């Protein structure tokens, strides 16, 4: 029997385990449809704010020598109201709406906007490392995280995911706060705060100076976070960070993730990466005699 790539992330049922991560190609429904056809199990939107944001001036993204990317796009986005209008016509694509804000009210307002949209889940960005007053600055404050998660959970029946990253407090406390407040799943991790300086012009290359490191360099860090979360909390996990091959994807499942997200790999391998990973995982499952992804979940913790 052909094994199945279908997976369940708590209440979220997906046909395929590899999602598009937030902020990657995440601004247009047409592109979402294309990515879904290309093998993505779901797409996460660019993180949306209550109003449109222009983001930072360029340079905002480039690649780091020896692999990986650094970005400080600055959460440019069309704003939740505009975005909701754009995806109103969505029928096919499992869309996860990423939200960013500073206080519970921001999130409540945005969730209202999507009431008429067909969406699969919300993902709360508690972990962007390069924009003031949102993202990590929220995630680093577990008390605020509790208030935001509770507020969103009270505003919608759609599953809610919290996306965490490495900040200035222990990310496991952020996970704990979200779990205590009824979160449905955790995405780990966001980019890691970083910098690149050009030695000829003697200045940081990003216009924002600081940005977030993504791609292969952060994979072993992200993997240990997934392993740590799944060892400590009974919460469904979406692994994210540096995944570019089926082996990477399997590593995260073995560490305890129920699904994964990727972004940077598209910059190296184009959107074929979704199908390449799907195929590789299927072959692996056949070879190892698994019929369902679930059977592999967390196996590395048994050793």
């Amino acid at each position: 029997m052909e094994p199945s790539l279908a997976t369940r992330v708590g209440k979220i049922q997906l046909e395929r385990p590899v999602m598009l991560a937030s902020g990657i190609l995440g601004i247009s429904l047409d592109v979402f449809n294309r990515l879904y056809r290309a093998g993505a199990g779901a797409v996460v939107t660019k993180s949306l704010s209550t109003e449109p944001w222009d983001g930072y001036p360029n340079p905002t993204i480039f690649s780091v020598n020896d692999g990986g990317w650094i970005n400080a796009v600055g959460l440019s986005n069309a704003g939740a109201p505009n975005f909701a209008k754009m995806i109103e016509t969505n029928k096919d694509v499992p869309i996860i709406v990423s939200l960013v804000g500073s206080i519970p009210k921001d999130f409540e307002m945005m969730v209202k906007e999507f009431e008429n949209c067909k969406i699969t889940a919300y993902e709360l960005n508690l972990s962007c490392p390069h924009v003031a007053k949102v993202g990590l600055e929220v995630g680093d404050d577990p008390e605020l995280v509790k208030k935001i998660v509770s507020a969103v959970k009270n505003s919608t029946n759609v599953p809610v995911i919290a996306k965490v990253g490495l900040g200035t407090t222990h990310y496991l406390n952020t996970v704990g706060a979200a779990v205590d407040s009824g979160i449905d799943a955790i995405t780990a991790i966001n980019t890691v705060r970083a910098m690149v300086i050009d030695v000829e012009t003697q200045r940081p290359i990003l216009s924002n100076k600081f940005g977030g490191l993504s791609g292969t360099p952060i994979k072993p860090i992200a993997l240990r976070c997934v392993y740590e979360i799944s060892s400590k909390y009974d919460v469904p996990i979406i692994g994210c960070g540096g995944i570019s091959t089926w082996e990477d994807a399997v590593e995260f499942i073995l560490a305890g993730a129920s699904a994964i997200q990727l972004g940077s790999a598209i910059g190296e391998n184009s959107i074929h990466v979704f199908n390449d990973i799907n195929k590789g995982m299927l072959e692996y499952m056949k070879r190892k005699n698994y019929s369902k992804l679930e059977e592999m979940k967390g196996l590395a913790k048994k050793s």
Partner: protein
Amino acid sequence: MQRNHNRPKICTIEKVIDETPTVRTLVFSDDVMSSVLPGQFAMVWIPGINELPMSVMISLESGKAAFTVRRHGPASTGLYNVKVGQQIGVRGPYGNSFDLKQGKLLLVGGGTGLVPMMRLLTFLKSGDDVTVLIGAKSKDEVFFEGLANSLLEKNPHKVIVCTDDGTYGEQGFVTEMVKKLVNEIHFDAVYTCGPEIMMYKTVQLAHSKGLFVQASLERMMKCGVGICGSCCVGEDLVCSDGTVFDGTHLLDNKEFGHFHRNKAGMLENY
């Protein structure tokens, strides 16, 4: 170490050429950039100011390349003001390129959209019969006419300039001339780059005659490698699927000719 094409490589400007009162060509040495394909572009970092997508202009000296920039907002004006000896960062090349057909060719360029057209001219086969249309608002803003003629020296060719105000060459929009020519002549290929409305009309006209036509598009760009999404037109990414698209494909795209996205990613009318 191997060159990382996705990180700005620092290049020093060696020559600055004023093409018009608002357009300059900045020449620098770089082997990779000197040999890109027509339609490909670079992301150009002006340290302390911004980073812009720029078509890679040819240089007649080997091992060199250039950017031809019109000063417009702060970013392009920053690049325009770079002096000889100053440094910029260049990453890429990015994007695909025009499919090179042979025979009777029509090139339609407007403003700095002429840049990929000039590079296309360096890839011609000896028998190609080439018509270059140059669109500009007025006499002041015409450039590359002489360059086009000299690049075409050995080919049967015509270079026709159209100015909106008639102060030079033919009077009227360049697309009027396209209309006239495609009615008279069967071109083996039509290539266009410039303001989107110009490209849209050119594609429509050529397509209505069943001609092979390709356009090189411009959109807001951040990454250049198909990650950020800022350059999307419908489901296409200009940076990695393009910049060059077939006319038939473009006419199916609801955004081409009508919308582009602003910095927040919102659709705006042209």
